[in-house]
């Protein structure tokens, strides 16, 4: 997928790839200087392109099909991952996965949305739109983490909760509400990372935590820009305007006090540099795990409650 604001970056990348290939077949090819030059140029182009993304452009980056997904983070960040399945009630959603994991020396429970890399996976996981079973599995694993006294890390990347008739029948609303209610009382640290799309209630359903982190090109919104535009502008094509108005970028949300820390992505976005992205997320998580580890259970719950109390509390006459 090409992003138009990236200007000639894809062409430069192509050229670099070509020269690198040439070098590989003919080690004597005199292309090193050219490659170095092109890389410098690419950096410059990308830096400029990403320095002033509009919110709508950010949405495109956040939804980029090559953006790292939860299983990429796990593979790159975690020493081990023991996936745990099922909601103990109806099924095992593929749109939310979870399990025990180690990050450096820390034992944690990782839970998050899982989009697919290809159509087949996307069909299985409903394009990362979770069903009630997904939210109920998530809650079960959180309760397990609480019993085992290990921190919980949730990864948010979803267009929203799955809007299917069966999901409604089995209580999509109840499942999300239950999570919001129970997560507020969890007696272990909960760190939330928004890595791509933070789609409304479907995101928040695993997103109540002590610390909310956000990748610099991710978004988080009460409604998709398209949805908002079609309701308030009566014109879905006004999504860029809606994206602007809704203040859905990491910077805006940081200013609004919703996000506690922005994790900067490598030059050119997370989809260009998995390793750089994963390392940045890993370091941020380790930092906050270390801080939260020292807070007592009681204080964690109290502080989390106060944190959410403050959101939308304004002075009135």
């Amino acid at each position, binding site marked *: 997928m090409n992003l138009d604001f990236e200007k000639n970056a894809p062409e430069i990348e192509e050229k670099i790839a070509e020269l690198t290939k040439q070098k590989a077949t003919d080690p004597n090819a005199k292309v090193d200087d050219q490659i170095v030059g092109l890389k410098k140029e690419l950096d410059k182009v990308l830096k400029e392109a990403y320095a002033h993304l509009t919110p709508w452009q950010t949405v495109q980056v956040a939804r980029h099909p090559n953006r790292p997904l939860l299983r990429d983070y796990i593979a790159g960040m975690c020493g081990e991952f023991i996936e745990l399945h099922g909601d103990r009630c109806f099924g095992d959603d593929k749109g939310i996965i979870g399990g025990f994991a180690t990050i450096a020396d820390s034992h944690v429970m990782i839970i998050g949305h899982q989009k697919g890399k290809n159509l087949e996976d996307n069909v299985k996981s409903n394009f990362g739109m979770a069903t009630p079973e997904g939210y109920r599995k998530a809650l079960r694993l959180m309760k397990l983490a609480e019993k085992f006294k290990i921190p919980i890390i949730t990864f948010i990347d979803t267009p929203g*909760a799955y*809007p*299917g008739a069966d999901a409604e029948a089995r209580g999509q609303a109840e499942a999300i509400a239950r999570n919001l*209610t129970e997560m507020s009382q969890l007696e272990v640290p909960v760190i939330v990372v928004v890595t791509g799309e933070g789609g409304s209630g479907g995101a928040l359903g695993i997103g109540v935590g002590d610390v909310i982190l956000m990748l610099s090109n991710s978004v988080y919104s009460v409604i998709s820009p398209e949805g908002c535009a079609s309701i308030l502008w009566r014109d879905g094509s006004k999504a860029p305007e809606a994206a602007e108005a809704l203040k*859905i970028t990491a910077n805006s949300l940081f200013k609004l006090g919703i996000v506690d820390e922005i994790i900067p992505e490598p030059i050119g976005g997370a989809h260009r540099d998995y390793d750089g992205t994963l390392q940045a997320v890993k370091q941020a998580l380790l930092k906050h795990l270390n801080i939260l580890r020292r807070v007592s259970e009681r204080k964690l719950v109290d502080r989390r409650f106060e944190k959410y109390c403050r*959101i939308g509390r304004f002075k009135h006459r």
Partner: protein
Amino acid sequence: MGWFRKKEKPQEVVTEKKDLWTICPSCKAHVYKDEWDKNFSVCPQCNFHDKINWKERMDILLDPGTFREINDNVSTADPLEFKDSKGSYAEKAEATKVKTGMKEAVITGRGKIHGIRVVMAVMDFRFLGGSLASGTGEKILLASEYALRHKYPYIVVSASGGARMHEGIISLMQMAKTCAGVARLKKMGIPYISILTDPTTGGVSASFATMGDINIAEPKALIGFAGRRVIEETIKQKLPDDFQTAEYVLDHGFIDQIVNRKEMKNFLYKVLRYWKAK
């Protein structure tokens, strides 16, 4: 039944003095306005439950003269300085306030139900579709905290299309905030009863409204998470007529009982007497 004030009932605009009839939106029956009003805005022919405003709801549920509003200073905020094609949210909110005489989409306070002290939050659909936003969430939370402090049962009457887009992420977070309040009631053993009226959808159904120790719905109320059109687009199929009705939701296990409006107060009274934990 002197608790009505006509000006608070927009669906019955009196155009002429001789306009004495209400036409039921459901069965099209012509009903004397007076009879309609005396029947709590419920159609005597087909039991259609019309939307009512917060004052009417309080009057129906609480003992006369016992309602005391709390946190009436909380008003809309405009954290995003939101503007759309039709103008600014601030202006829209202001106009709504003038029209409804309310500062936000919910009114909270304490009162009595046949002598039992309770804390009530009543959403009003007239105020921007009863949408959940900073002020709404704040009042619903503050009321639950009030209930917690005083050990009074908490009753919320929902009527809402969901989160208010104009306050963006702040609106979304009110789902978590109100649920955090509910969690504290649960933990301390304070009863929380949720009454779902037409409509209770989106971010409100996906937060406090479905979390009652007891969930009660009015007949035929629209209750659901996603909108019908979105679902139909997703599954490429027409949905049955009863989809997302209170009756459907009862059948799927999420509602304890469907209770007629005129029996609601007695139902609450009867249920609250079972709470022995105080």
